[in-house]
Structures are given as C-alpha cells and as structure tokens.
C-alpha cells in the first residue's frame, strides 16, 4: 500500500468517525434542556411592587436583582407570573407564608400593611420599604426620596415658571385678579406621609419665596387609584373641567405624568397648563424635550434598587441596618431631555 493510499484511507476513516461524532454532538446539544443552566444563591429575597407603572418598578427591580446576584442573593419579582392579580398586601402575606429570606415592598399607611409587616418581622423576615414608607411599622429600613426635598425641588420649579410668566404677565398678576393655581396630584389610596412631606416642601418653598396663597394657590387633587385605569380617568376629568384647570400641574408618579401629558395633548392644553412630571422614562423625556412637560424630576431607580438589597443584605448578615436611606433625584429640563433623547 502506498503512502497516498494510506492517507486516503485514513481520511475516509476520519471522515466517517468525524461525522458520527458530529451527529452525536448535535444530538447531545439538542437534547440538553434549557432548565439545566441556572445558578443557585444563598438568599431568596422578594420584591413586591405596585400593579401599575411596570417600567418604573422594573428598573428598580433590575437594579435590585443585579445587586442581589453580586451579594449571593436572588431577588424575585413576587407574584409577577401569577394568573391572578393579587393585591400588594396579599402578596406580602403570601411571601411571609412562603418563608422567603427578605421582602422589599413599597409601604403605605394602611393598618393591615403594618400588621403584615409586623408578622413578617416576627417570623424573622426582614422588610424594606421602598419609595413609600409605612410609618409606624417595624420595617427594617425605608429606601426612597426625601419627600420634603422633592417638594422643595417642585417648589423651585413652580417659582421658575412663575418667574417666566410673571415677566410676561406682570399686569395681570399685579392686579391680583386670580392667583396662580398649582394642582398636585396625590394618590388617594396612599395615605402616605411622604406625599404630605412633598406638599409641605412645595408650600414651604413658595412661602419662603414670599408667595402668598393669594398669589399662588397650591391644591391637591386625589387621583382615584383604587381600580385599574381609574387614575387616567381622574386626570382626564381635570382637563375636562375648565374651571378646575390649573396653571401648573404637579405629578408625583410616572403614571400620573404620562396620563397628564397625554390629556394635555388630547385637549390641546399644551402651554396653558405647565406640567411638572416625575420619572425619566423615554416617553416622559420626549415630552420634556418637546416642551409638553415643563420639567421632570427623576429618582435614581438604579440607586433605589441597589440600596434596598444592600440594606436587606446588611440586616440579614449583621442584624442591623439604617432605618432610612435617601435616594438621589435629578431635575431634567428641556435641554437635558433633548440630549438624553438623542443619546438613547
């Protein structure tokens, strides 16, 4: 047998074996299930969020999840995959009954919530309130905006608008015909002190600037949040009732901001009503860039999620954590919004 023949035979043999191996490899690749690839963690934390405003909460959740993975904990978005939409308190109870290692949940002033939080803590499950606090409960920590500071920021924005308009309409205001109406949209399901602190901040800022109630009238408008889609209807009502229509509308949640902005466009009130928004989703940023919204104040969602897990982890490991962690906010105006929209 010549060398050439040996090489040819070897090539044939290798080809056959190679193709068989290839076949086997393909088989094993296909047979391997997806569920096989997962990682395990030491702690099981759950995050329970509101039913609305998924984008906002998703951002916080993603950040919390990432931070949790760094710390050997898995943060579950509890109740998200269920076919039945459970209320926040129901989910809280289920989380306690499922014996998780830690709970992150937005608080409220509801007594039932306080009870559930107490139950959880008694069972050794640490609870962190995020964004909204449940004052008087025995939760381990509150991670959120400083309501009074937020209110001050809105107040400064109001003053800025008043300054601009004042220079335009000096005569009218000087004559004292009607005070400038500032309407703050508040969530009527949440008897949360945070909202009060915000109002306090706004009012305080205006008073400090020497604006009396005759000049600037700060009112609150409770938005019905009890049913699905009801908040949108409540906000539209404001725009439909021309007498109630404010000069400045302050929204304290991302959903309210979006509803107000859409209503202003639909009822052609852009310019008539200056809207101060909350949060920095793409839609809101675009609205700011188009000057439909005067400005928006965005909490640092990434920081919020991270701090929640940090506090939880700290408590689980050391038995101690800060009872309040402040999250930074950021004021976004037209120019910056334009830049951010272009950047994305």
């Amino acid at each position, binding site marked *: *047998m010549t060398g050439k023949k040996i090489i040819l035979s070897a090539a044939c043999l290798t080809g056959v074996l190679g193709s068989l191996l*290839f*076949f086997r490899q*393909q088989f094993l690749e*296909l047979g391997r299930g997806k569920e096989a690839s997962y990682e395990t963690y030491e702690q099981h934390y759950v995050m329970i969020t509101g039913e609305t405003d998924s984008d906002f909460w998703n951002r916080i959740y993603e950040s919390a999840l990432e931070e949790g993975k760094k710390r050997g904990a*898995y943060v*579950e978005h509890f109740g998200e995959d269920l076919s039945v939409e459970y209320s926040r308190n129901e989910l809280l109870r289920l989380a306690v*009954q*499922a014996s998780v290692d830690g709970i992150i949940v937005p608080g409220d002033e509801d007594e039932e919530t306080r009870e559930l939080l107490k139950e959880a803590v008694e069972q050794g499950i640490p609870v962190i309130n995020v964004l909204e606090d449940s004052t008087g409960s025995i939760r381990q920590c509150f991670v959120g905006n400083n309501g009074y500071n937020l209110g001050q920021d809105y107040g400064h924005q109001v003053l800025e608008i008043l300054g601009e308009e004042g220079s335009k309409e000096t005569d009218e205001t000087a004559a004292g015909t009607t005070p400038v109406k500032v309407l703050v949209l508040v969530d009527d399901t949440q008897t949360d002190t945070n909202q009060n602190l915000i109002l306090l901040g706004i009012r305080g800022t205006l008073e400090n600037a020497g604006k009396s109630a005759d000049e600037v009238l700060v009112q609150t408008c409770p938005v019905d949040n009890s049913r699905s889609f009801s908040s949108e209807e409540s906000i539209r009502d404001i725009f439909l009732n021309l007498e109630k229509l404010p000069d400045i509308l302050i929204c304290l949640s991302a959903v309210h901001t979006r509803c107000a902005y859409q209503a202003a466009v639909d009822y052609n009130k852009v310019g008539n009503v200056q809207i101060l928004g909350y949060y920095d989703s793409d839609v809101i940023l675009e609205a700011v860039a188009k000057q439909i919204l005067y400005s928006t104040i965005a909490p640092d969602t990434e920081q919020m999620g991270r701090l929640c897990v940090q506090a939880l982890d700290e408590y689980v490991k050391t038995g101690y954590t800060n009872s309040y962690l402040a999250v930074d906010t950021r004021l976004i105006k037209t120019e910056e919004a334009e830049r951010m929209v272009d950047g994305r």
Partner: protein
Amino acid sequence: MNRKKLFGDSGIILKRKWKYLTLQQKLTALFLLTAVIILIVNLYMFALINKMTGKVEEVYISNVSLNELSKALDQVQNSMEEYLNTKSSDAMEDYYRSEQVYHELVDRLNTQVTDNRMLLTEKNIRGLSGSYLELVAQAIQAKRGRNVEKYGKLYEDADMLYEEILTFIYGLNNAQFEDNSQNYQVLLRSLRYMELISVGVLLFVLLGNISLIIMSTRSVTRPLQQLARAADEVANGNFEIEKLPVWSMDEVGTVTNTFNEMVENIRNYIEQLRETLERENRLKERDLMVQSHLKDAQLKYLQAQINPHFLFNTLNAGVQLAMMEAADRTGQFLENVAEFFRYNVQKNDEDAALREEIHLVDNYVYILNVRFSGEILFSKDVDESLLNVRVPSMILQPLVENAFNYGIRNINWKGRIELSVYQKDREICISIWDNGAGMEKKRIEQVLSGHVKEQETTAGAGGIGIKNVMQRLQLYFHNQAGFRILSEGKNAGTEVLITVPAEQEEPSCIV
C-alpha cells in the same frame, strides 16, 4: 510509540493476508466491509434517534407531576372540609393519607434559591404548602377541641391559602407547559434536523465507501492493466520489457507470474536461436577461409614451382638460341610462350585493357596452334575504339581455353573459335563463339549457377574457371556485367557473351 508499532504490525499482517486472498475473496471482503460500516453507522444513528424520541415522550412529564400535586392538594382540602363538616373518622383517615401524599410530593420540590423562575416557584409552593399544612393541622386540631371560632378562622385562612397555592401551581404549570412546548418544538425540529444530518452522514459514509471500493478495486485491476499493456508490447514484438511486479498472490498474480516466465522463456529461446545461427555463420566463414587459404596455398605452390624470371630468362635464352640457329618459327613460338607467361604473372592481380587481353588470347591461340598443328581456326572481329576499355585481367584467355578444351578439341569437324568485341546500345559485348560440342540447357544452368565440380570448370592446373571469371566480372562492374552462355544444344556450338557497361564507373581496384 508502541501503539504506532502495533498499528504498523497489524497493518503488515493485514497486507500479507490480503495479498494471499483470491479475487473472489477480496471482492467479497470489500463488499462485506462497506456493508458492515454502513450497517454500524445506521444502527448507531437509529439508537440516537430512538433515544431522542424517548425524550420527546418525557417532555410533558413535569406537567403530569404538577397535576398530581394539585390533585393531592385538592384531596387534603376536601378531606379537611369533610372532617370539619362531619368529623368522621373516614375523613380523618383520608386527611392523614392525603396529607402524607401531599407531603411526599411537596418534599420533591426544589428547595434551592435559583435564578430559574420555575424552580423558584417550586420553592415558593413548598414554603406555602408548609404554611398551608400547618394551618390545616391547626384547623383539625381546633375542630377536635371544638373551638368553633378558631377552626372557622383557620379554615378560612387555609382555604384562601389553598386557592393561592393552586394559583401558584397553575402558574408554574403554565410556565412549565410553555417551556415544555418550546422544548417539544425544539425536539421536533431537532428530529427533523437529525433526519437531514443522518442522511448527510449516510451520504458521507457512502462516499467514503465508494472511494474505499475504488481504491481497493484499483489494486485488483491495476496489475491486470499492466499485464494487458505488457501483453500488447509483446504482441508487437518487443520482448525486452521489464519483468512485471507481482502485487498479490491471487489469480492475477498467478497470471502475471506465468506471463513473466513466458516472456523470459521466449527471450531465452530467441537468444539460443540467434546463438545457433551465429555459430553456423562462423562455421561457414571458417570453411570459406579454409578454401581461400587452400587456394592461396595452391597458388603459392605454383608460384614456388615456377620461378617466372627463371622461366622468362630461360624462354628468352630459347628465343635467342632459335634465332642463332635460324629457327624462326621456334623463336616465335618461344617468344609467344614467354609473353603468355609474363602476362600471367604480371596481371594476375590487376585489371587490364581489352587490347592486352586480346593480345594474350592471340598468344594463347598461337601456342595452341603450334601444339595441335594449326587445328584451330581463330578469327577476331574487334571494334578498334573499344580496345582501351578496362576489364578484369585474365577473363578472355580462360574462356578461349574452355572453348578449345570442351568445345572443339574432341570434334570430328574443323574447329573454329571467334572473338568479337562490339558496342550495342550502352553496353560493350564481348563474345567468344565456337562451333564445337555445344551444351545442353541443363548443363548451361549448372555452369552458370556454379553447381559444377571445381575440376570441371577449372581450366587445368593453374587455369582459371568460369565461376572465377563470372565472380570477378561482377565484383569489378558492381553487378552490372552480364555473363551468358548460349548454345542450341549438343554439337551446335557455344557462345559465351559478356556484356559490360559502356560508360564505366570508377571500377574496383582489386579483383
């Protein structure tokens, strides 16, 4: 290294075995080998595909077990309700049994914290189930203690949790169903893909087999082709081919061996034949040499016998003596004899002009007439312009001598010899005619073909035969000379006619 050696050894053994297989065995082995390869590959792929089909069947098994879980949960709930309703011992038994089953099923659920949604839900279900079973146990306990308010509240809680656990199971079931459906789709697609791949692999293996067959059959047919080529060469007369190499010991090998031997034998035979011929030729040559030497010896002998100078001087002395004694005729006779012999001695190896040849004939006829008292009537008819033509020496005298000896010597009538030289067309004709005994046709043929005994054509001792004359003429004129003997038969006289080309080429110097 050892493995390499092992492979090498087994390779050599295989090669050796292969070499000694017959053609039929080789072909059978080849087809068996390829068939076995294809069979093995097929079986292997079938086994894999079969395994995959098994996997497809198992796809929905997790849904089945979840359904079992929810059924067990139902039974716990029902048996609790039944017990709370009736407080019957059957219900109690049912409760314990179903609680046990549910516990076992729940224990199989995942306990790890993972980033896999479904596994995490399992963990939650496990936790919730723990709380639920506790609530149920408490409710049953309260019922036993007839604490109506408490078991009512506990039942409500347990019922709520039961619904919620079902929701979790339902959610997990959905998620698993979705996942399993995806897996199922992937598996189905994979199966189709596997079909394609298996066809591809089979095609590849087939190609490999074909090349294997081509390679192996080539090892069988190549020696045949070589053999055919070699046979073709031999058929065309070329026996000087190289010995064909024998690759294997099958039928082709045997034929090749035989062919090699055959060619070798033929070659040897031809060689032997050539050697025999050469030997014969050498023998003939030697014979010729012997004859030639004999002639040479004869000549040397004659030369030794007669010292020409002594003979000339003697004859001249005779001439002078005859002149002194006034015997003129004797003197003339002796002078003729002296001239005859001088010419003989001088011209033995050279050519001569026709004039000299005719003069020699004159001398010879004179001597003969003296010897036989003028019996011969000799006449000449010679074209004077042809007297300078060069011819081999000593060609006319032997012919005249023959004409005298065999033609007219023993006849009863008056003998006559005529010599004529003339030109006809581009040839010079020299004719010696006698009216003597004549020759039969057969005899003429014998003389011309040289089949006559040497003595008969030799004109006596020291004479030169017809054959010799013919040969020298042909040599001198490069086969362009003609030599004919014409006779009407017995007693009809004979004419010897020599024709030579009129325009002579440069003749050969030595004749």
